[in-house]
């Protein structure tokens, strides 16, 4: 078979995308854990380590641009590389959500409000969805990718549950509004992370079919409130 160099380099980039994905998964799980345990040193580390995620994303982007410039990928190869540019962007933004959670974990150290139990489940669900979405992505399985977005409903349900709970705290005791608002932010970041998994699944379908299409989820596209610094 010809084009061994191109094939080898594409596989290498795919591996790097998976590595980036696992960095993001770990960051989010650890950020929620740091919040739960009110572990400020861990939160500081997660906050700082987001720069590794950003660096990895730029390195992959650069490698993809070089491959497009030098190897003239066509058809499926081209779709795969274009899709990976999109996927690493999604992963970096998820990394920012984890960083945002870590930032909040630093801020509410010592505060009185409980950390909602739903956060752990939401993080776990979002990370599992991401993991399977990336697995479907590298195996180019459109069928599996298509099945993942509907799982977002579970995350949305938990989000609505935790939202009502936090609003109730605010109403019951307006002194907690600052703190409660930060917790709302955590819920939002977790919910958005799961939303963005859908974008990765859309790119998998694009690689296989060549069609760019939005996958239906019940979620409304609310404005980003995530941490961007």
């Amino acid at each position, binding site marked *: 078979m*010809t*084009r*061994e160099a191109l094939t080898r380099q594409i596989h290498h980039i795919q591996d790097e995308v998976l590595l980036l994905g696992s960095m993001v998964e770990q960051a989010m799980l650890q950020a929620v854990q740091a919040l739960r345990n009110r572990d400020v040193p861990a939160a500081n580390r997660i906050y700082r380590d987001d720069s590794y995620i950003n660096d990895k994303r730029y390195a992959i982007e650069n490698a993809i*641009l*070089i491959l497009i410039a*030098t*190897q003239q990928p066509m058809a499926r190869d081209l779709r795969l590389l274009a899709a990976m540019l999109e996927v690493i962007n999604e992963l970096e933004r998820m990394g920012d959500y984890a960083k945002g959670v870590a930032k909040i974990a630093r801020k509410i150290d010592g505060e009185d409000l409980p950390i909602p139990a739903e956060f752990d489940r939401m993080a776990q669900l979002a990370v599992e969805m991401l993991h399977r979405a990336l697995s479907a992505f590298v195996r180019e399985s459109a069928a599996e990718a298509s099945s993942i977005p509907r799982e977002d409903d579970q995350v949305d349900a938990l989000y609505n549950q935790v939202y009502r709970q936090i609003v109730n705290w605010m109403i019951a005791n307006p002194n907690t509004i600052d703190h409660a608002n930060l917790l709302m932010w955590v819920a939002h970041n977790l919910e958005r992370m799961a939303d963005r998994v859908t974008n990765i699944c859309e790119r998998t379908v694009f690689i296989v079919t060549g069609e760019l299409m939005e996958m239906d989820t019940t979620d409304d596209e609310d404005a980003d409130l995530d941490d961007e610094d």
Partner: protein
Amino acid sequence: MMEREHTMALEVREMDFYYGSFRAVKNVNLDIEPRKITAIIGPSGCGKSTVIRCFNRMNDLIPGTRLTGEVLFHGQNIYATDVDPVQIRRLIGMVFQKPNPFPKSIYENVAWGARINGFTGNMDDLVEESLSQAALWDEVKDSLSKSALALSGGQQQRLCIARALAVKPEIILMDEPCSALDPIATLKIEDLMRELSVHYTIIIVTHNMQQAARASDYTAFFTMDTTDRAGLLVEYGETNQIFTNPKDQRTEDYITGRFG
């Protein structure tokens, strides 16, 4: 001793080349990395074929030509008076634009160069090894006595590469080796070049910049000076850099198709 001081496969120093009184190439300074693929690109008339032919004294065969400057191979100027050009061409082989097998059997095409060089080892082994290295053995092993001219264009070109390999060169010069081949045969040659670069230094002239981008590690961009029409080296660097972020505006214009 010399090996240690001169780590480059070739070092080109202040090289000018003349056809009669016309200076076709001027002031070339270039270090060729060993066991890498270096591509020479540029528009028609920029002197790229002339330059590659300077690297194994192939231009000596054209009357009225002259070279100044130096081309160092293991630190030794290949244009020094005591250097045998035939020996240079054995160590620095060449593959041409149009496949040019001899009108003999496949076997004889490969064995010929080694035989006239006084090879005394096992010729069958050498032929098999050379054809294998050129990724042709599996296709021809049962028809070694058939005429080389019966092979396809892509196979003929790989046979010419096997023929060049059989005399154990260090450097292989390729002057537009794929311009007469179809796209699949072209990609096969490119994959072969990548395999060969583990052991050999390869320098390829190509008018196909996509090929340079795909197949090379380093790229040298030549153009023609508009005042005296002499070819000159504009930019030389890693292929990835040349094709994503060239430093010279002339390189940028050429590789983005905005030349002329």
